[in-house]
């Protein structure tokens, strides 16, 4: 239940103080996994990076997080929290700045605040950027400073922002179809959170799920034909795929059906696999999270030992902001190991032989891994208790 609540809070922007959530997370005592004695473990050789660099000057007073690349890798974005406000920073892939997405229509363009000293600024919370296939446009979720979360449309390099949805309940977790015509998103307007399709040209909405439980984190397959998402309640979510969004109910199939909590599914870049976090683990401790990888076509078991064998990495930090991070070759996943002694290091697991090696970044309390099309790895890490974004690249 707690897990599900945190998911909704963090991703639909209910928590204005998400920065403090991130910090608070670091103070929680991590569960102790059942592992062999230290002397029995032969530590794998770490992968040495070509470089690890911070993308902005290391500063206190703000927390940066949720880095991501556009599909082509031409654009890089991350989110910056200052106090209770959150803005999206858009950069070129050489990390030169392009624009800041901070939608605050109620401010009158800022002039009212600027020329009226002492007036407290409205807080706007902007998150979850998703790019159109041509990367000319983007959609994102914002409360516009007014407290109601809706989806908005922006242009690369432009300042105008147009509303995409308007409802008193929250809309968020948008993902723009690789085919360009539709955006799938989650809305609280029905049920506990249903999936909807938005036709970008006509703004016509199509409801994909019919309530009963919460439907979260939809993501289009790389070919733009299918949608993966998680659904469930309390601490029991499962992974589903809709094979044909035109027939959502008929074409929906379960990827997992067991009682473990499976969350935040992500397609592999080649569209053949789906990775997700699960609190299944051999120790049976529901506080320990794993990364699981299954065939997207449904040929893998949906439960039992057959599914249990699909564990790719054990004892991981489950970052709901991003989900498991696929390398572009679809053969490796980069994740954060739940290892407080090593300050939660970044690991890379090779899916073919399950070999798992740490990436030597010398950063601490890592989170929000994202992999770029050129093999770069972005993540957030703490410096003096403030979150900064780093980019690393492996030598190979």
């Amino acid at each position, binding site marked *: 239940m707690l897990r599900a609540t945190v998911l909704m809070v963090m991703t639909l922007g209910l928590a204005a103080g998400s920065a403090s959530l991130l910090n608070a997370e670091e103070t929680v005592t991590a569960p102790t996994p059942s592992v062999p004695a230290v002397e029995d473990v032969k530590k794998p050789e770490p992968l040495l990076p070509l470089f690890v660099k911070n993308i902005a000057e290391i500063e206190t007073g703000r927390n940066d997080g949720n880095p991501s690349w556009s599909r082509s890798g031409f654009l890089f974005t991350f989110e910056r929290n200052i106090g209770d406000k959150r803005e999206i920073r858009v950069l070129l892939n050489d990390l030169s700045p392009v624009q800041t997405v901070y939608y605050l229509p109620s401010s009158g363009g800022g002039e009212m*605040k600027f*020329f009226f000293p002492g007036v407290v600024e409205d807080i706007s919370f902007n998150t979850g950027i998703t790019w159109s296939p041509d990367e000319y446009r983007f959609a994102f979720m914002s409360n516009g400073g007014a407290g109601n979360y809706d989806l908005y449309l922006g242009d690369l*390099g432009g300042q105008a922002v147009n509303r995409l949805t308007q409802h008193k309940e929250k809309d968020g977790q948008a993902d723009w179809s690789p085919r360009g015509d539709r955006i799938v998103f989650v809305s609280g307007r029905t049920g506990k959170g249903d999936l909807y399709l938005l036709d970008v040209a006509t703004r016509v909405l199509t409801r994909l799920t019919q309530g009963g439980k919460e439907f979260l984190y939809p993501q289009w397959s790389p070919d733009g034909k299918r949608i993966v998402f998680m659904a469930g309640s309390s601490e029991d979510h499962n992974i589903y795929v809709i094979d044909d969004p035109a027939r959502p109910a008929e074409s929906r199939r379960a990827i997992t059906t067991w009682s473990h909590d499976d969350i935040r599914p992500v397609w592999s870049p080649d569209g053949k696999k789906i990775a997700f976090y699960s609190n299944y683990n051999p120790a049976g401790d529901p506080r320990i999270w794993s990364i699981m990888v299954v065939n997207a076509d449904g040929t893998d078991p949906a439960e039992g030992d057959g599914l249990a064998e699909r564990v790719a990495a054990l004892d991981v930090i489950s970052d709901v902001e991003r989900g498991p991070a696929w390398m572009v070759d679809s053969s490796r996943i980069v994740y954060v190991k739940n290892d407080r002694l090593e300050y939660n290091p970044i690991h890379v697991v090779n899916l073919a032989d399950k070999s798992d090696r740490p990436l030597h970044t010398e950063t601490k309390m890592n989170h929000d891994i994202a992999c770029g099309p050129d093999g770069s790895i972005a993540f957030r890490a703490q410096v003096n208790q403030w979150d900064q974004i780093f980019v690393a690249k492996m030598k190979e």
Partner: protein
Amino acid sequence: MRSAECGVRNKLRVTKTGLLCVMLLLCAAGSGHAADDAVQKAMKAYEKHRYEEGARDLRQTLSSLPQNKQSAAQLALGMLYLKNAELHQGLFHSSVVVNADYLNRLARERGSSRSKYSDLYLGLTLLESGKPENAAAPLEKFLAGTAEKKHKAFAAIGLGMVEHHAGNKQKAQDAWNAVQSSDQDVKTELAFAWSRAVAADKNAPALCDEVLAAGRKSGAAPSIIAVKNCLGVYAAAGLMDKGMDLLQRGDLKSHAYRESAGRSKVISFYDVQLLASLAKFYLAAATASLEHAAADAQLRSIANYYLSEASVLEGSADQAAKAATAFLASPQAPPQYKNRAMVRQGLVQYQKGKKADAIGLWDELTRNQPNDPELLADVLFACGRLSIECPRPAQTAASAVERGEGKRFAVANIGLGRYYVGRKDYARALTYLETGRDKGNKNKIEFNDPLMLVDLAEAYYRTKKYSEALEIYFEMSKQFPQVRQLQEALQGIYSMEHKSAGDVKIN
């Protein structure tokens, strides 16, 4: 925007061109940033109460700012001038009080070392005191004595102004026409008199132009008398550029006359009207800048808010009401400023004679928001400004500051303090003002509203705490050298009462 679109269009086709275009966009934005910086810097100066400095710096960069930043710059300039006008009105009011006291004491002295010029400057001060008829006696006394012709001319012009205020326009004209002098200061004194009397057949600005041009030719800085007079003339004529030029060249801390009385006594005299001229000039400059800003649809609503305040200072009740109503109609107006505009509407109603309506409005606002220190302070400022009794807001604010957390309610304490200054209850005013001001930086204008400090200094003066008042003026004079006239007068009173020069320096 065009550069941005260029960046987008080329982005995927030719990456390098796209990069270049986006970078060009950033460079183009850079020039806008310089403009933003200038306005931001001005607004920082505004918030730090450095009105002179902020306006001077922004004005210097005005011509280099792009067209689309001109309105914002004019708005910031208007705000700075408006605050400066308000401050100088406050300083003028205090200076009349302190100088009238000081000059009265000097004028009452007897013996060989008695100052002759105290009569002239007492008369000129009383002319501005709201009871101009009281000025006649000392001015006539000065005229009856021996003094330089130039100064006798000042007295004669002053007597003409007494007639003018009494409604005897012809007598005033006759008095001024009788003054024949080639002295440049006298010419400007006449020009200002004509300007104040709105004499249609006299070209006061041309006379000032002539005098100032002659001074410029000789390389001499304009005298403080010329500055005082011509600023007033230019303000009335809307000749802001000429006034700004004059302000830059004048030394505002100069005395009008220095008299050696007796063997070791030197008395410096100042004309309180300098502060009134400055207030009028800044108000005219504020109105001009704010009207410029109001032409921009995006800034109109904000400019209207400040224009309504300017109209209140000017005494134009209808204009103030119109501008306040226009501001209140804006859906984006911040609630805090909406409250302030509504309080101002009450003030306008009061000025128009609808006293019960005004009090009723303030009482209702107070009843609806009894714990809003900003609102309570605004209502009390209005009452203090009118020197009227507002029992409900005063009681509500007094209860609120007793209950409330100190820092948040500092503004309500200041509101109460200024209210009691208006009510002439100086002991109570002191208690509230001292509680409300920033104690760590007690006389620094960066941390305290200088208008509050002026009220505080007056409360100190009225309760004979001269050292404290002088300390405030000393700090203020660093930013506003024209405060010198208050320092000197107060120092004079201090030394008369304590038979010492006091321990506070005048820079």
